[in-house]
């Protein structure tokens, strides 16, 4: 058990001035509800331009960690730095600028129920850039909705008229409204059918590559981890116990990590990934281009 105490990759003693390499840095975070300690001495770095998957058992505080990073939850101790600003002591007016540089997709979508999908996307635009004309704002809302994989008819629909998967996509469109550098996703594929989940994964990957996003992705979905995450952070024992690529994590001897990745579901996802890679390899051997991830 001792060898797991040292995470494979936590950058030691980062230089203090923010160098832009780590859009998110968390140091010594402690979160407590009543006498229930959720995080204690949690450290995490997210690199620019990566998709970081965050995993951990239910109730280990993944959502709470995300809420702390975006400033919704005031930690008892510790420091959170996002895009060079310290969140933990940010005053309301000071952190407005930073709020225009991230997008958040909440677990339940959290769409404004009295507004249509497109109007939901327009809310942050209206709030931060009131000088944008109505025409341009409508156009922006429309292409963001399409970019998130919703059909054009969905723009004028209300959240109550959407299915679960469509709500997630609409939430993603709103999270992307301001062209953020940072995207926070809380279990985006939970509750989607496997095909919908795979399409959502590819959508996130494509957007991340096109828009050069840094993505903080909480997920339980092993396929998502294998398919699109550059690195995975594991939360257990109130800390981030390890950060690394999946092969790096598999090399560790922590019982929870082994159970997670080598359990029946973990195996299935590994096999699927292996098959996927094999198909890709043969296709490119034939001189054909690799299959379009979107399918259609």
């Amino acid at each position, binding site marked *: 058990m001792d060898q797991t105490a040292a995470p494979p990759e936590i950058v030691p003693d980062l230089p203090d001035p923010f160098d832009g390499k780590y859009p998110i840095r968390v140091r010594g975070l402690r979160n407590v509800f009543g006498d229930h300690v959720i995080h204690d001495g949690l450290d995490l770095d997210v690199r620019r331009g990566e998709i970081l998957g965050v995993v951990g058992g239910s109730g280990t505080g993944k959502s709470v960690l995300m809420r702390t990073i975006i400033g919704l939850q005031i930690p008892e101790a510790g420091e959170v730095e996002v895009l060079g600003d310290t969140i933990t002591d940010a005053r309301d*007016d000071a952190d*407005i*600028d930073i709020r*225009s540089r991230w997008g958040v997709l909440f677990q339940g979508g959290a769409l404004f*129920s*009295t507004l*249509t999908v*497109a*109007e939901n996307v*327009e809310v942050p*635009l209206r709030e*931060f*850039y*009131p*000088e*944008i*004309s109505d*025409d*341009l704002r*409508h*156009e*922006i*809302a*429309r*292409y*963001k909705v*399409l*970019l998130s994989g919703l059909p*054009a*008819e969905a*723009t*004028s*629909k*209300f*959240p*109550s008229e959407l299915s679960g998967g469509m709500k997630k996509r609409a939430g993603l469109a709103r999270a*992307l409204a*301001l*062209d953020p550098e940072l995207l926070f996703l809380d279990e985006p594929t939970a509750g989607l059918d496997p095909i919908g989940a795979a399409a959502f994964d590819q959508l996130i990957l*494509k957007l991340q590559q*096109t*828009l*050069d996003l840094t993505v903080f992705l909480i997920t339980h979905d092993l396929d998502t981890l294998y398919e699109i995450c550059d690195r995975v952070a594991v939360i257990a024992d109130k800390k981030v116990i390890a950060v690394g690529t999946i092969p790096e994590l598999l090399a560790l001897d922590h019982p929870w990590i082994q159970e997670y990745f080598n359990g029946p579901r973990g195996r299935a996802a590994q096999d699927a990934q292996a098959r996927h890679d094999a198909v890709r390899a043969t296709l490119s051997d034939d001189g054909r281009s690799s299959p379009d991830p979107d399918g259609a």
Partner: protein
Amino acid sequence: MQFQRYGSCVALVALDDLPHEAGKMRELTDFQLVQSEGGSTSTLAFSGPMTVSSLGLADARLRAISDSFSEIDLTGVTRMDTVGAWTVWRLSRDHDARIIGCSDEAQKLVDAISKADSNDHSVRAMRLPLFQRVPEHVGDVMLGLGRGMLQVVGFLGQIILSSASLLRHPSRFRGKALVHQMELVGVNSLAIIGLMSFLVGIVIAQQGAVQLRQFGAEIYTVNLVGRLTLRELGVLMTAIMVAGRSGSAFAAQLGTMKLTEEVDAMRTIGVAPMEALVIPRIAATMIMMPLLGFYSAFLGIIGGAFLSSLTLGIPFFTFLTRIQEVVPLHDVWVGLTKAPVFGLIVALAGCYQGMQVKNNAEEVGARTTAAVVMAIFTVIVLDAFFAVFFTNIGWG
């Protein structure tokens, strides 16, 4: 070469008139239309960042360009996001212009955006033109009123059915929920109803005495306070207060539960929402209303006695003894008969409106308002009816 400048000369503009930005400087998009010598081709050349934060002010001027151009030059663009890419794509689409000097990243964005170009599907929900909308709305309201009445009667019928089935299976009755609601409806409102009634009692005694003094009949203040509070005001004011406090709470609670699908979840588990949610609330209100009404009348009388002892020279206990003599017992029965009926109406309105909520959060607000308005309106109408009724049966 001749230059035509559309963009501002200085790309840095003070943003004092924009919220969040007072005193800050932001780099803005700049552009110019460059015409070649012969005037055959012209180029729209952008410079500076093309991002959501920099394009807002340039957009109007871009849309105002009426001259045609055949090239869009992005060589001078420092940064680009999807809003910039959209602007470039839209201009190239509308003016049939070629994009030149585009970096790889920008090209990737423009390609992605061009695939997400829709044919102007509306951003808003479907809306009819005004002259159709107004009559439609009027019709909707009228039909809604009619249908609403029917539905309320239907709802009442369901309640009666559920109550009957509860009578047959008393073990299904939710005693805990009932007691909890009785506490919320009754016990927790004692302070506010008590204060209100006490003060109204003072006002009646004071104003009554001023008028009656003109006939030297000040002693009749006792009759006035006693009969008015016990027969009418005690129960009526309590009903209005309970409608505001508890009827609205019922509508908001049940409405939110409907929105979060808690009510549906209950149904699927086999718990009837009628039995678990509606009946305890209605029963609690019907039980508490007579108690609260009597309590209210009692405190009204205390208020009247208090004022009389201070300013009219009628001692406190004399006032109370006189009340016994001048108030006929049937006044108490009148008040106590009306109270459960009013309680039923208040709780019914709250629960009915709450269960009608669907779609969105705004609906919860609208239904809560409707619950209170419906309850108070019905209570006052019924009170008038009761006044005539009881007088006619000889309880005048």
